[in-house]
């Protein structure tokens, strides 16, 4: 960092010392760079401002003018519940798998193929969400039906698997699993980076003291990567909260607020609700949908800022 700063200063001094023509070029170029920087910040601010201004009418409108004849809070609450539920399932499924995948790539697989394996995991992030949606409803959903039935029969006493089991697989559990696959690469990439940076003296020290590989992982790699894994999980959660198409396609929605993960009646999510209703809406219904988008924006913003704060604090240490 300090090295960059000295060069910057040296460059500025030189530029200042040389002729006026050069200074003009420098001024134009550096101004352009600053304008680009400010544009990006303005864009983010614009997202917030336009969502607030277009969403605002829905906050003040009376219940009878809004879709479903509910006040805005009553309208958005079940959607927010569905969003958080689907994302919580996704995170709970994805994080252990992502940690295992990262450990496998960094400490277990032969180093020769580790790079290729990492690339394969990253490929999961490259697949468009619409394709995940189609795969979820045509392939995973039908394949999951017998599993859902089994869960209902054997574990039906747990409220999560109360049933009746869906006959199509368009359930919260399946949607959550597809979301888990979608966020796995980002969680795994962050965990992988941290695990690979575990200081040699710790890992080799542990082995020199007679630790087996698992003991080495448990006592050095996992504690070292802990905060990275936490921030990665939060970033993954943020992704899952905002993911639209997979849920839109897979989930069969009824507006019910329930923890039942395997039935046909599920709460929708904010993003899926927008994608489903926006194309056919007009007037105040549009404002209401934009207002729910604002709520989603706020939720993801808080999640992401918290994740970034964890990363920043850790880099500081």
């Amino acid at each position: 960092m300090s090295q960059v700063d000295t060069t910057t200063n040296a460059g500025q001094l030189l530029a200042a010392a040389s002729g006026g023509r050069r200074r003009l070029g420098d001024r134009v170029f550096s101004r352009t760079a600053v304008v680009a920087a400010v544009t990006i910040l303005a864009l983010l601010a614009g997202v917030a401002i336009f969502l607030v201004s277009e969403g605002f009418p829905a906050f003040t409108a009376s219940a009878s003018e809004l879709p479903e004849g509910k006040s805005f809070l009553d309208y958005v609450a079940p959607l927010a519940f569905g969003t958080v539920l689907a994302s919580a399932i996704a995170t709970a499924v994805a994080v252990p798998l992502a940690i295992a995948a990262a450990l496998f790539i960094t400490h277990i697989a032969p180093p020769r193929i580790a790079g290729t394996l990492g690339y394969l995991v990253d490929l999961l992030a490259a697949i468009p969400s619409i394709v995940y949606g189609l795969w979820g409803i045509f392939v995973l959903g039908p394949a999951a039906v017998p599993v859902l039935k089994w869960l209902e029969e054997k574990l039906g006493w747990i409220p999560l698997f109360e049933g009746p089991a869906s006959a199509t697989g368009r359930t919260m559990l399946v949607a959550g699993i597809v979301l888990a696959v979608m966020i796995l690469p980002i969680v795994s990439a962050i965990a992988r980076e941290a695990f690979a940076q575990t200081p040699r003296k710790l890992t080799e020290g542990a082995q020199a003291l007679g630790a087996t590989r698992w003991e080495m992982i448990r006592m050095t790699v996992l504690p070292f990567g802990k905060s990275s894994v936490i921030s990665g999980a939060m970033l993954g959660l943020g992704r899952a909260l905002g993911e639209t198409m997979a849920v839109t396609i897979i989930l069969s929605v009824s507006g019910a607020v329930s923890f039942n993960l395997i039935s046909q009646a599920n709460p929708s999510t904010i993003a899926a609700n927008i994608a489903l209703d926006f194309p056919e809406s007009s007037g105040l219904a549009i404002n209401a949908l934009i207002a729910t988008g604002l709520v989603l924006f706020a939720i993801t913003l808080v999640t992401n800022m918290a994740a970034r704060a964890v990363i920043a604090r850790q880099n500081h240490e």
Partner: protein
Amino acid sequence: MESATVTDSPGLARPSSLLASGAGWRRRAKDRLMTVLIAGAFALAMIPLISLVYEVTKRGIPGLNLDFFTEDARGVVGEGGGASHAIVGTLVITGVAALISVPIGIMGAIYLNEYGQGRLRRALTFFVDVMTGIPSIVAGLFAYALFELFLGPGIRLGVMGSVALSVLMIPIVIRSAEEVLKIVPNHLREAAYALGTPKWKTIVKVVLPTAFAGLVTGVMIAIARIVGETAPLLVTTGVVDSMNSDPFHGRMQNLAVYAYNEYRSPGVFKQAAYDKAWAAALTLIAIVMLLNVAARLVYRRYKTEIR
């Protein structure tokens, strides 16, 4: 990395079992068990990738024929017709998004790496990270709200989709460009300054050419990330059956929304519509994979060797 091989070599593993004496087999068994569990979890995570690629290929091929690439869907019911309007729309919308995002993103990265100081730099670094987390549907709503303000409610334009995609693409471009500029060694800049080169010329003639392959790779990967976006386009570019290549007039179809729409409203001839949806999905995956592979090749072929 090498630690893995160290454990495997019997010469080093033996002392540990000697030290642990009686309990050694238990620890070794646990080590084996955990290794198997971790490898199993990795395999489990790979199943969706394999299944997805297999199913999309298998189900996509029946719908892929010449018509798919040459015809649009105007007045088509059931079989026949194609997605040429969606392919053209995808290219136009993504192209305009790249035209907006690449200059802003790369100049932003130049700001961060070459000029930035103090609060603006810190704010930009932080908020670019935050921007990478904006849900794509929210970016779409933003573009809609922006254009609605000027052009009235219900507006749908190709360029609105491009603006929405830019919100998603700029942070990806700026992140990757910043990484690449960071690894351009300082002695190159210092050498240019020592010859009396002004700073802007140093950046244009020394820094950017050195980083060129990395910048191109970053842009291609960013395009690959947004080319398959559905949600933001669903609320901005609308759905249409006929060809439109003008981003500033009227609705514009694209491959992702086309696939969604064929699935969502298949009409009477369900299988024909589903075939088209899968064909569009396969085309999208092919585009994304091509961009990813091309990006790697560009980087390998053109990267500057830095000594």
